C-alpha cells in the first residue's frame, strides 16, 4: 500500500513536469501568444490544439474499449460556467494548469491568478452546496 502510493506520486509528478514543459513550449503560458490566438492574429496554437484533438481522437478510437466511462453530462451549469471560464481565460491568460507554468517561467504575477483560482473553487464549493445542487459531472480523474 505504501509503495503503491509513492509510485503514484512519482508518476503524477513526472506527468506534471512533462505537461508543464509541453504546454510552455507550445506557448500557452505566454499571454501575448494567447491573445494573438484569440484575436485571430496568429492561429498557430489553435492549429496545434485542433490537431492534438484529432490525434487523440484517432488513437482513442483504436483503443476505445479500454477507456473508462466518464460522467460528463450537460447540466444547468455547463454553458454559464464555460462562459465565465472563457472570460476569465481572456483576462488572466491562464487556465487551471497554465498558472503553474507561468509561475515556473518567472511571471510572479501569476500568484494572484493562483489565489484567484483557489478562491473561485472554494466559492463554487460553498455556493454549490447552498444554492445549486445539481450533478456537475466530473472531468476525468
Amino acid at each position, binding site marked *: 500500500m505504501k509503495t503503491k*502510493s509513492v509510485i503514484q*506520486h512519482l508518476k*503524477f509528478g*513526472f*506527468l506534471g513536469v512533462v*505537461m*508543464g514543459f*509541453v*504546454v*510552455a*513550449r507550445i*506557448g500557452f503560458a*505566454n499571454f*501575448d501568444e494567447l491573445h494573438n490566438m484569440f484575436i485571430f492574429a*496568429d492561429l*498557430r496554437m489553435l*492549429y*496545434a*490544439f485542433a*490537431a*492534438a*484533438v*484529432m490525434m*487523440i*481522437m484517432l488513437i482513442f478510437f483504436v483503443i476505445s474499449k479500454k477507456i473508462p466511462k*466518464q460522467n*460528463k453530462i450537460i*447540466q444547468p*451549469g455547463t*454553458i454559464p*460556467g*464555460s462562459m465565465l*471560464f*472563457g*472570460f476569465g481565460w*481572456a*483576462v*488572466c*491568460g*491562464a*487556465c*487551471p494548469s497554465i*498558472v*503553474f*507554468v*507561468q*509561475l*515556473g*517561467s518567472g511571471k510572479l504575477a501569476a500568484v494572484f491568478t493562483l489565489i*484567484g*483560482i*483557489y478562491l*473561485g*473553487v472554494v*466559492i463554487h*464549493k460553498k455556493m*454549490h452546496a447552498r444554492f445549486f445542487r445539481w450533478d456537475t459531472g466530473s*472531468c*476525468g*480523474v
Partner: protein
Amino acid sequence: MNEYWSWWLGALGLGGFCILYFTLMGNLLGVSASWRKVVNWRKEQELDAEISQFDEDVTGISDALMAETLAEFGDLAEQNSVSQTHSQNVVNSSTPLPSNIPWTAHMAFLLCMTIGGFLAAITTGSFKIEFTLSQVHSQIFGSNIEVWLSMLFGGIMVGFGTQMAGGCTSGHGLSGCSRLIPASLISTCVFMGSAILLSLLMESTLR
C-alpha cells in the same frame, strides 16, 4: 516567434502527452478535477481513509474465509484458491479506479508543472523574473496594481467557471472533444467563443 514549437510539433507533444497520461494512469486528463481534489483535501482525506479501511476489511475477510475453508476442506481448497484470487481481481478492477489516487498525488501533479515550465524557460533562455504578465496585458489593464487585480478576478472567474462547467481546457477541450461527448463539445465552443469575444473587445480598447 521561432522560440516556440510549430503547430504540428505542438500537436504531437500535446496529443502524445494525453496518450502518455492515459497509459500511465488509466484515465483521461483533467486538470480542474485535480484542482477540485486538492482544494477539497479534507473531504478527500476522509475518503482515502475509508477506502484503505475498506481494502483492509476485504483482505481480512478473504483471509479469514480462506483459513476456514482450509480447516474444513484441506488441500482441495488450496487448488481452488487460484480461481478465487482471480475472481477477486476481477471485482477489484471493476470498482472505480480513480478514487484510489490520493489527493497529494494530484497536488504533486499540479506543482510539478511549475518545474516543467521552469525547465522549458531555462532551456530556451527566456527565464526572466517579472511582476507583470506581459507587455500587451499591461497595455490593456494599465498599472501594476490594476494588472494584479484583473488577474485575481480573472482567476476567480476561471476557478468558479471550470468547477461549474465540470471541466477546463484539458478535461473538456482535449479529453472530451476527442471522444465527441456532447457536453464537452458545447462547453469548448462556449469558452472559446467567449474568450475570443472578450479578447476582441480588449483589443479594440487599445486602438
